[in-house]
């Protein structure tokens, strides 16, 4: 055994580059998987912790519509004597010095059984904190860390902003949360409920009432429900968290799938390296068999090599992954804030599960990838010198069965897509598709070589023909390298086409839906739109402005029922804005009369998809007057949210909900009115009342597209990483190939090839491989794009979009493949041309 291992180590030691590249490939693959997993997990954990901090010991909650609960309900419940363990809560977000802070308004006497928020105050120097909290308007508690960061001392006044309005606060005390809650409580403000109502502009209202009902049976819950007014609902405390997590579900699945893609490309790499190493040692293996090594010895040997490379790569990958995750988590958080809700993730949570997952994928995947080369090694007959051509003949014989398995996999992928409607099945199909395609690659390469040989011959003479021939004759190597590169390039094509299509559709949608001239909304942090409103005085000013032809007013809200959160937007629409809505299944003349006059709503495509709803059917919503049915007047195209939105006319909304606020307004100006002058005027008139975002539609469109691009920033990063892994793959494959052929090349040198010619030969060969990869990548990329657009996107978000394939994306793909191949061929080519023929011959 000693001998075997020595032989193995010696071989590995003599090919450090190959080993290093394999390790790097695996490392990159594992790194991406681990990083994405960590980023997802950190976001989830931050979310859980923040829910836990604010939910505390509550088992149930009483919640209501967008406006919240009438505060007198709490008094009624307390005085009924039915709910001694109940605590009123009002919460919302405020901004200070560019930071978004979450304000939790509590009733200290009801609190202690629910949360231990007040237990983190230091003993000393916090004189009469509670007295101050309860009696002094504006008194808030802040984390010590934040207070120090803001340079605020106890007793100091400062100005918070809510919904663009200034609010005077005073720092009553600083709490120091325990380590595990530090991240969650850092951006928390705690105040008495009176102060919180005033700071949030919600005097008279509660966000919810928390209850502790540990072993309440259905009858007891029903008895409590009987005390509630219509519109107020008793729900389990966990329901809201579940509902919120549901929103980000599709987003995190998409990220995970992208990261797995990177790993798959990495596995191709390890497969390639090890099967090459086996081939290169075929003579050695034969001799070892003669010396008594059994088949299983050799199998184990190669498997161990794979394990070694896999383990080293995985370890490196874990480290890289953790580093990468630091960056990725910022992008993930940004996206969640842009699209879903306010979430601060400051700490990476390194969970054992995440690390174990990375190890299993890296090491397990490597073992899987190495089974074929290991079997190849085990099959080495004793002593018999297996020449290259024999191996290649074998490989070519395998070509057809491989191609057939590829076809079977493609059929399987199609079946997967047809049989299941789930997102996971969509991704599974995507991977099966890629695998099937890669099995077909050798066949395609062989075919393309046959066509390419005369072409390259005509272009470059006999070295050209030799280059093409070389690719075909080393099909067992080149096939894998080409497959890896084409998958990587196809991924970029697929994702590129999808993003491009998506972006174009979004752009068109923005163009048509943002036709108003000026947009006005309170200046508030992203993710807090549901709790901000235009000051009524501002609305009044806007409504009486001369030069305005029409105003579109909107009030977006979130309605929770069961464990689902529904987004609803109430709209007051001027006639000018009707044209901006594109309905998918009914002509607008049919939709608008219903929307304007009936108890009807319009729903976005996503909402319709997720709920299986169509125009003409109806849906139910939890209103302040209980559950009510609404007809669906039409389904409109919308890319605002992935889980969909319902729109309703303002007057209908106000019939059912006790909420009069307006979140934002779009102004349609009369012809000839100067937009800039009007904006200046607006600032002058309303600037005193409230800090506002006043934007022209053009700027808003640009900002929306920017948000869109930011959302896909992660996708771009992952795409680059996948290409990086593939690049390493092709580099190592080419190095192996060229090194393997060094004897052949030395012969060429010996018979008169100049180094320059040799260099040309190698370059032509790598170029040809790049070209083939690029050509193969384009159809696969388009198929991937279709799956992403029609399956993944649809199932994740319910969006449909017009497919846009620009020539530039395809051309870029070709160029990318060519460039990657040529770049990867540089070093082997240089090395070959530099090696004196005698040495190369001797080395063999």
């Amino acid at each position, binding site marked *: 055994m000693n001998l075997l291992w020595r032989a193995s180590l010696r071989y590995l030691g003599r090919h450090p580059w190959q080993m290093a590249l394999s390790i790097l490939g695996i490392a990159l693959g594992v790194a991406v998987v681990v990083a994405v997993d960590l980023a997802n997990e950190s976001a989830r954990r931050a979310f859980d912790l923040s829910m836990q901090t604010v939910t505390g010991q509550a088992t149930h909650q009483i919640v209501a519509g967008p406006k919240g609960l009438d*505060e*007198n309900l709490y*008094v009624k419940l*307390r*005085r*009924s*004597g039915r709910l*001694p363990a109940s605590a009123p809560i009002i919460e919302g977000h405020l901004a200070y010095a560019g930071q978004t802070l979450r304000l939790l308004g509590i*009733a*200290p*006497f*009801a*609190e*202690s*059984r629910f949360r*231990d928020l*007040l*237990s983190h*105050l230091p*003993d*000393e120097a*916090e*004189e*009469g*904190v*509670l*007295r101050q909290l*309860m*009696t*002094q*308007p504006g008194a808030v508690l802040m984390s010590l860390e934040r207070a120090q960061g803001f340079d605020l001392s106890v007793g100091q006044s400062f100005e918070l902003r809510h919904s663009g309005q200034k609010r005077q606060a005073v720092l009553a005390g600083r709490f120091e949360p325990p380590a595990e809650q530090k991240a969650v409580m850092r951006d928390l403000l705690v105040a*008495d*409920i*009176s*102060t919180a*109502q*005033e700071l949030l502009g919600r*005097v*008279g209202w509660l966000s919810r009432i928390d209850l502790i009902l540990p072993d309440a049976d259905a009858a007891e819950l029903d008895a409590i429900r009987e005390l509630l007014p219509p519109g107020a609902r008793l729900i389990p405390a966990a329901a809201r968290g579940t509902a919120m997590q549901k929103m980000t579900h599709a987003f995190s699945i998409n990220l995970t799938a992208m990261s797995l893609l990177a790993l798959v490309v990495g596995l191709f790499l390890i497969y390639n390296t090890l099967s090459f190493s086996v081939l290169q040692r075929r003579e050695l293996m034969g001799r070892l068999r003669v010396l008594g090594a059994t088949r299983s010895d050799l199998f184990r040997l190669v498997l161990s090599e794979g394990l070694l490379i896999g383990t080293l790569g995985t370890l490196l990958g874990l480290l890289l992954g953790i580093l990468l995750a630091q960056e990725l988590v910022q992008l993930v958080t940004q996206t969640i804030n842009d699209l879903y809700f306010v979430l601060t993730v400051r700490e990476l949570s390194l969970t054992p599960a995440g690390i174990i997952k990375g190890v299993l994928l890296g090491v397990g995947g490597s073992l899987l990838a190495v089974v074929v080369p290991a079997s190849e090694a085990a099959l080495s007959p004793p002593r018999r010198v297996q020449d290259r051509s024999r191996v290649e003949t074998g490989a070519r014989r395998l070509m057809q069965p491989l191609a057939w398995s590829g076809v079977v996999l493609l059929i399987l992928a199609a079946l997967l897509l047809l049989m299941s409607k789930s997102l996971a099945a969509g991704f599974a199909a995507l991977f099966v598709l890629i695998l099937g395609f890669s099995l077909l690659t050798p066949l395609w390469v062989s075919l393309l070589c046959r066509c390419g040989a005369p072409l390259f011959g005509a272009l470059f003479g006999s070295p050209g023909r030799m280059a093409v021939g070389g690719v075909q004759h080393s099909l067992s190597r080149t096939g894998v390298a080409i497959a890896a590169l084409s998958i990587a390039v196809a991924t970029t094509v697929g994702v590129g086409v999808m993003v491009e299509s998506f972006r174009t559709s979004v752009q068109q949608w923005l163009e048509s839906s943002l036709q108003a001239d000026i947009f006005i909304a309170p200046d508030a942090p992203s993710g807090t739109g549901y709790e901000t409103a235009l000051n009524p005085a501002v609305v009044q000013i806007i409504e009486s402005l001369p030069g305005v032809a029409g105003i579109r007013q909107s009030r977006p809200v979130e309605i929770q029922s069961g464990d689902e959160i529904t987004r609803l937007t109430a709209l007051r629409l001027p006639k000018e804005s009707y044209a901006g809505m594109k309905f998918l299944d009914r002509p607008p003349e049919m939709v608008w009369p219903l929307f304007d006059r009936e108890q009807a709503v319009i729903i976005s495509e996503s909402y319709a998809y997720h709920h299986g709803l169509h125009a003409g059917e109806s849906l139910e919503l939890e209103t302040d007057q209980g559950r009510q049915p609404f007809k669906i007047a039409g389904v409109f195209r919308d890319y605002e949210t992935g889980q969909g939105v319902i729109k309703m006319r303002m007057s209908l909304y106000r019939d059912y909900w006790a909420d009069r606020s307006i979140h934002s307004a779009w102004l349609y100006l009369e012809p000839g009115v100067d937009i800039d002058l009007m904006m200046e005027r607006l600032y002058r008139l309303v600037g005193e009342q409230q800090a506002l975002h006043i934007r022209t539609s053009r700027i808003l469109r640009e900002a929306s597209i920017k948000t869109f691009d930011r959302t896909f920033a992660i996708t771009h990063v992952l795409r680059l990483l996948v290409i990086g892994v593939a690049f390493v793959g092709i580099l190592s494959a080419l190095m192996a190939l060229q090194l393997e052929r060094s004897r052949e090349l030395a012969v060429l040198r010996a018979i008169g090839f100049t180094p320059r010619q040799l260099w040309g030969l190698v370059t032509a060969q790598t170029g040809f491989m790049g070209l083939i990869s690029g050509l193969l990548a384009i159809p696969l990329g388009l198929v991937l794009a279709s799956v992403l657009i029609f399956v993944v996107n649809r199932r994740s978000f319910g969006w449909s979009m017009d497919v846009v394939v620009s020539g530039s994306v395809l051309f870029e793909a070709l160029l990318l493949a060519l460039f990657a191949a040529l770049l990867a061929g540089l070093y082997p080519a240089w090395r070959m041309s530099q090696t004196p023929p005698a040495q190369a011959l001797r080395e063999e």
Partner: protein
Amino acid sequence: MRAVIATVLIIMVLMLWWLFIPQPAEPPKANSVVDMLGGEADAGFERAEQPRTFRFPQDHGAHPGFRSEWWYFTGNLETAQMRRFGFQLVFFRNALKPGEVDGESAWRSKQIWMAHFALTDVQSGRFHAYERFSRGAIGLAGAQPEPFAVWLDDWSVRQQDGQWILHAAEKGLSLTLSLVPLRQPVLQGDAGLSQKSAAAGNASYYYSIPRIRAEGEVMVGDQTHRVTGGVWLDREWSTSALGEDQAGWDWFSIQLEDGSDLMFYQLRGKDGRADPHSSGSLLLPDGELIRLGAEDVKLQPLGYWDSPKGGRYPVHWRLQIPSQGLDLEVAPVLKNQELDLLVRYWEGAMDISGTHAGKAVRGQGYLELAGYSED
């Protein structure tokens, strides 16, 4: 009197402290407690410096100009089958700061309320005690003169059709009584001004309604008992505290079958000696009110009860007022009537027997023992 200003002050201070530590509470550190309350608040409060004119029903309501105030209902109840119950329902008001509140929110309040509800079930030998806290705002807790009401959540005493309806309930326990006062309010101390320690203003306004007829229901578990009995109401409001050297008090309220009502509180110094400011009153059946000073009353403990939580309470007494020919033995109906709440103290139903002006007499009453627990 038990209603020594400092009590509530201390209770409130401890309550503040309790809010800052998760339950179960650690024994509070006296210094931090005092720090937390701060010393600034006195200036704007009214003080009990001289006798005032009491008006009813206005004075049944709250006096928010003073720092603290309470409505103290204690009573002995009995079923037709002679099953004995004792109860205590007390509402404490404490102002965090003097003056009106600022701001728009109806929740902001300077008034904190605390209520204790205790029930002594002699037959089963069990004593139950509960406490509640709330702010005096938005209708969660408060007091009003007309129609009279004092409440915290669903614990309340409310005037309805000329009667006061007292109600308190906890899981598996409920008490509902209708109350009819049989006496006019008795002004304690100097026409209602009750001096607690030597410094001027260290006093309270104090009145009692010593005899109130009660009728209603006690529910224990799933059993409901019809009961009748007698209730004592103590009302007191003040701003300033006990002197520094005062440690606690023993408070007696006694209703004798011959129609006499006796109230006496003995203030104790830290040295364990009776304080000269101890005081009380004896209301004779004919309506004559006799003021009692420290020197008029002889008190002698006859028996003790050791709390498992620590502290030794003198729960059995001999009370003598030689000038009135009164010699009474005051014995607890149950030894363990300790309220193990945020502030731990003993308050329980008592049986009275002895002689008054040479005649044998029996009665019922309540005893409060404060300042004996070690925490």
